[in-house]
């Protein structure tokens, strides 16, 4: 059993390790390690397209994670008071949203957005006062943020809801009993209690959006996110530069995930007592 487990882990992690290793290769070859160097990191970071793609990815991840966190938290709190069949339906929908393959979400979002744009653009053109300056709705930042935000909202809901459900109901009653208004209770008791889950949800949402290729590929329009850039440059062959970018993305993602996990773990401690 142990041998199999080891084999599985090796199979999973050796390619990642090799990417990280070859990102420090001084030579160009993708199969021969000729010496240690950080030149490819320098190359990657001075590449205008890489930096632009990084900025796009970062902005999209930040905006979509923020949206997902705000609405996901609201939904998680609201779902707490929903009971019975409606609750089951909502639960199912949320889990489906997480489990549906990215490619389905990508295509579905693309079709939905394009249809809406086709319908809205003539309408906008008709009502806009200045004909030359009519805004054209098209794929880009907005569609990326919307698609990522919707998908990651499901993640945030799941994480925050687990925390809300684990929260002692009597804390809320105690707060009300001590004279706090419903909003006062939310601000002084509920929010501090679920804050770790909200933060962890935000970080996970950010990581997901930052890493996502499939959904972004469909809805990015003319924008290029970092994963899309990597994909397109790989078609010209794997270079150590791509390895360096991949390693950077990996490092950022891992840091965020570990932070999120640490927050979720640490946040539980005080309630244990």
């Amino acid at each position, binding site marked *: 059993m142990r041998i199999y487990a080891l084999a599985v882990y090796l199979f999973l992690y050796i390619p990642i390790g090799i990417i990280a290793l070859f990102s420090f290769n001084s030579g160009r070859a993708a199969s021969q390690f000729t010496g240690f160097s950080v030149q490819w990191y320098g190359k990657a970071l001075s590449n205008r397209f890489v930096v632009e793609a990084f900025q796009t990815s970062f902005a999209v991840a930040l905006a979509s994670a923020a949206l997902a966190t705000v609405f996901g938290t609201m939904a998680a709190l609201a779902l707490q008071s929903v009971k019975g069949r409606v609750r089951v339906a909502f639960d199912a929908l949320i889990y489906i949203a997480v489990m549906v393959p990215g490619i389905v979400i990508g295509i579905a979002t693309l079709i939905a957005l394009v249809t809406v744009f086709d319908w809205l653009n003539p309408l906008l053109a008709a009502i806009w006062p200045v004909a030359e300056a009519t805004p054209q709705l098209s794929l880009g930042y907005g569609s990326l943020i919307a698609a990522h935000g919707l998908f990651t909202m499901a993640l945030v809901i799941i994480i925050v809801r687990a925390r809300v459900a684990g929260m002692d109901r009597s804390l809320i009653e105690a707060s009300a*009993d001590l*004279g706090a*208004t419903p909003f006062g209770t939310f601000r002084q008791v509920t929010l501090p209690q679920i804050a770790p889950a909200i933060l962890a949800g935000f970080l996970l949402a950010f990581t997901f959006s930052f890493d996502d290729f499939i959904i972004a590929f469909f809805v990015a329009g003319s924008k290029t996110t970092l994963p899309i850039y990597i994909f397109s440059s790989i078609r010209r062959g794997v270079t150590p530069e791509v390895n360096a970018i991949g390693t950077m993305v990996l490092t950022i993602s891992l840091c965020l995930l570990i932070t999120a996990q640490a927050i979720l773990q640490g946040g539980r401690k005080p309630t244990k007592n």
Partner: protein
Amino acid sequence: MKSEPSLHQAPIAELRNASKHFGDVIAADALNLTIKRGEFLSFLGPSGCGKTTALRMLAGFEAPTKGDVLLDGNAVNDLPAHRRPVNMVFQHYALFPHLTVAENIGYGLRQRRPRMPTSEIATAVERALDTVRLPGYGPRRIWEMSGGQQQRVALARAIVNEPKLLLLDEPLAALDKKLRRDMQIELQTLQRSLGITFVLVTHDQEEALSMSDRICILRGGRIVQVGSPRDLYDRPKNRYVADFVGKSNFFAGTVQQASKDGCSLTVDGGHVISGQSTQDLSRGQKCSASLRPEQIRLTRKPDGGVSYPVQIVTRIFLGEHTEYLVRHADLGDFLVLVPRQAEATEGGFEPGDAAIATWANGSALILADD
């Protein structure tokens, strides 16, 4: 001593025909109860008897389905919990884990509008900490406190607001026995010194008996009997109350004769037990004769009263008393509590010994089930 409420003063709280239904379940059924100013009242009953529902209606967490809840003479059915001058000590304390001890205690005062000056809050919190004998514990974190200390913090958090009613939901259930005893005394002392009306919910009859001025016994959502601990102990309304309050031996039988002066019951084996009743009984009714273990004496030779030859089954040494489980051929097993002094003169009994169980004729209580 507490002053009796004057006649023109409305009672501090009142339940008038208050019912609470949860779907088909009737958690509280037309409760009528007046809570007097400054008293220590307990709701006593097994789980599911409606005692917690009654408390939650007073706190404002549940609105009565029918009837009224009054505070200071005003109906407060629709007044939400956060606007009632009532505070509660929760069963598992419900202390805010993200706040310090002092922040927990000051929570209620910080909600007041217009705002209370921070310095005044700090002073009040210090005073409350002194009251519950936790001076200097203010900066601590909740999880650094032991169970007993958390209990005191929960108490301080409630009394610092000087509520009209302090509601306690099984506050001592989570403490160990020794600590529970100490806290019982402390709660009682605190209640006397603060003059706040306490309403306690408990399933522990000993707790209710030792602390309360009055006890309200509930069963299946209805009030069975309200009275002082002594009333309930000496004059239980029915078998249920006698069984719940203190220990009692019950001998089932049929009423043979019932009148104002007393009644008698024919039990198994044709024996007749006579006594008093708190209810109107009729001849032929199925009833039980109740005898407290301490009403029965154990002797080696018959000496006055009614006596039954018994055999000792078990013996439990309780310090001040020894509790014997004895067996009579017709009456079955019953408990006898022998004070240490009586044992000294009569000598102890060992399991298997023969003895005579004696009680004063007419001292039993004849009680119907309801």
